[in-house]
């Protein structure tokens, strides 16, 4: 029998920056996990992964270097499932993604998958995790899970639409300059050993939605407003001179699949920055929420998003740039990333929204978790997802002082939302004794 050729594709337009922007001890990663009601069977999980990887050849892939571009190549075999570490998104050498761009981990009743952001985004990662979970449940409990709500049939051949670089495919005619100027950056001392603090809050999704509806805004706008409400006093404290205050902005990723009816499983997400400028005066909470909601509505439109990413696509299509060797491209992209990449927003907040699964899977699942690693320059990141009225807000930080999450969660409590906190700090403290 003739051996099938391995799937491979050039990195999509958004992913180009991720290998270039990496630095020692940091590269852009995120983590999707699902917590079940029963403990995980490692052997079954490995067996489910062995089946699932064939369906997702460009997610279960490794990063390879060409002379002009990076590319992703399908893995020969599924990676081994491993026991989770003492923190999410453990510091790994970049060489790991040359072996496998994903890691599948388990701990007690939790399955977690850590993705290098160059292979896919949160929505693509969710599809992979749901499909892996469906296969696991089918093998473990002998049930039949239908292919709906983002669960893909594992034994079918991957569809070419799933490999599409949707940025290039949906490129527009108008390119937009997205310069917005500097935003406030939280000052703080980095953890010397790069320990990543995770403070996870469990709240009722209905409570958050109720509060958001009272203000006439979405849950994302509401949570962003709570973040801005927290960050404004921090800036006032850290920068006493009012004339030096900068806008406080939250970076919100927008899933473009819904706007462009794309089926890709690769990156198809674009960020918009929403916020307020405290130099203009004091804002009350309702005012902030209203402003952010309007900015989201104005920014997250198909035409606006298309104009923004068309700029990036056009620059990658210039013939002279195409023939520049990869190492030079990396130097240029790294310099651009350092200069403007993360300077326009104070903090990131990524809301995956309500995760739906087929009815057959629901009785086995407690909740989903979504964690995004800290950015290169900003030590904080917030990721939110909800499942069956359980909203999990995962706050990560690699700096020492927890002032942002402290303010954020205290503000939620002040708004009348019950917040249940778990962290990875207790065990860290204990192990040091």
């Amino acid at each position: 029998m003739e051996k099938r050729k391995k799937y491979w594709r050039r990195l999509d337009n958004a992913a180009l920056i991720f290998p270039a922007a990496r630095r020692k001890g940091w590269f852009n990663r995120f983590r999707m996990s699902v917590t079940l009601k029963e403990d995980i069977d490692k052997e079954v999980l490995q067996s489910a992964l062995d089946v699932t990887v064939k369906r997702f050849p460009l997610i279960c892939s490794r990063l390879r270097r060409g002379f002009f571009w990076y590319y992703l190549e399908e893995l020969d075999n599924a990676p081994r499932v491993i026991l989770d570490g003492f923190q999410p998104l453990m510091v790994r050498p970049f060489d790991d993604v040359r072996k496998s761009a994903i890691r599948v981990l388990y701990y007690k009743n939790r399955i977690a998958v850590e993705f290098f952001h160059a292979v896919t985004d949160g929505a693509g990662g969710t599809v992979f995790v749901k499909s892996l979970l469906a296969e696991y449940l089918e093998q473990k409990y002998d049930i039949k899970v239908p292919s709906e709500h983002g669960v893909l049939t594992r034994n079918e051949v991957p569809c070419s639409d799933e490999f599409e670089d949707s940025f290039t495919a949906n490129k527009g005619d108008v390119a937009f300059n997205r310069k917005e100027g500097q935003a406030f950056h939280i000052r703080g001392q980095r953890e010397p050993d790069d320990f990543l603090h995770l403070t996870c809050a469990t709240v009722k999704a209905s409570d958050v939605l109720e509060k958001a509806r009272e203000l006439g805004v979405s849950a994302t706008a509401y949570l962003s407003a709570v973040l801005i409400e927290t960050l404004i006093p921090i800036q006032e404290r850290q920068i006493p001179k009012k004339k030096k205050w900068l806008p406080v902005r939250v970076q919100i990723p927008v899933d473009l699949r819904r706007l462009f009816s794309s089926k890709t499983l690769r990156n198809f997400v674009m960020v918009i920055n929403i916020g307020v400028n405290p130099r203009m005066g004091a804002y009350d909470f309702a005012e902030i929420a209203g402003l952010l909601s309007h900015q989201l509505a104005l920014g997250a439109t198909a035409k606006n998003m298309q104009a923004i990413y068309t700029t990036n696509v056009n620059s990658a299509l210039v013939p002279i740039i195409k023939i520049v060797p990869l190492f030079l491209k990396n130097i240029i992209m790294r310099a651009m990333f350092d200069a403007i990449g993360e300077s326009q927003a104070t903090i990131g907040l990524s809301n995956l929204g309500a995760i739906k699964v087929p009815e057959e899977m629901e009785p086995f699942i407690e909740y989903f978790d979504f964690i995004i690693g800290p950015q290169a320059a900003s030590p904080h990141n917030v990721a939110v997802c909800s499942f069956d009225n359980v909203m999990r807000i995962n706050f990560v930080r690699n700096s020492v002082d927890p002032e942002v999450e402290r303010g954020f969660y205290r503000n939620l409590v002040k708004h009348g939302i019950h917040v249940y906190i778990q962290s990875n700090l207790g065990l860290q403290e204990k192990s040091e004794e």
Partner: protein
Amino acid sequence: MYCIHCGVELADSEKLCPLCSTPVWRGEFKQVKGQWVPVVAVASGSDEEALYPNNHSEKIQTNRPWVMLALTVAYGIAILTILTIDLSVNGMLTWSNYVWSSMVCFYIIALLPLWFQKPNPVIFYPAAGAVVILFVGYICLITGGTWFLGFAFPVMGAILLFSTAMVALLHYVRRGKLYLCGASFIVTGGICVLIEFLLANTFSELTFTFWSLYPLISCSFFGLFFIFVAICKPVKEILRKKFMI
């Protein structure tokens, strides 16, 4: 359990509130002189609800030994090639003596410590110094010189002994850096005198003119100044304020 400052409910795994570091007390409380105090000071959280395992033993795997082995083999091949070329061209070892000995010297100084995750300078520094002394002695031997035993060996040996002591003290003793600085200035002045003495003793064309007195006096002055600053705390404080970086 709720944090009294933040108002959030804390999981059983939490030992402190992760937001404000307030300790979580799970023991019973009793009233003593109007104050509520814990009967049992239970402050540890339960592992049952822990979000992450306590497996700090997970280490980042690096392929350092393989890289170093490959580098060593490549280095060995390079030395053998050089020796072969010299032998085949000149029929004996001539210029390659300098090359192989300096390459071995470089390997021990710069590459040997890379085999280890955390090379201890107290071991590798004197080892590197000893190798340099041997290298200089070998050069003296193959050039037929007479300056090694009479001059280079005692000077380099003295410098190596002194600097090894400094490295060890800096590595293991946290305090007293000003004393070390003062002592190093004074010893440097002393070594200058030793160098002049040995120069005059080894090379007949040189005479002992006591030029080393000038560096000895100035080094001793600086050394005594640092020791004075180390002893006199008010002066130390004033200087710290004036010259802090």
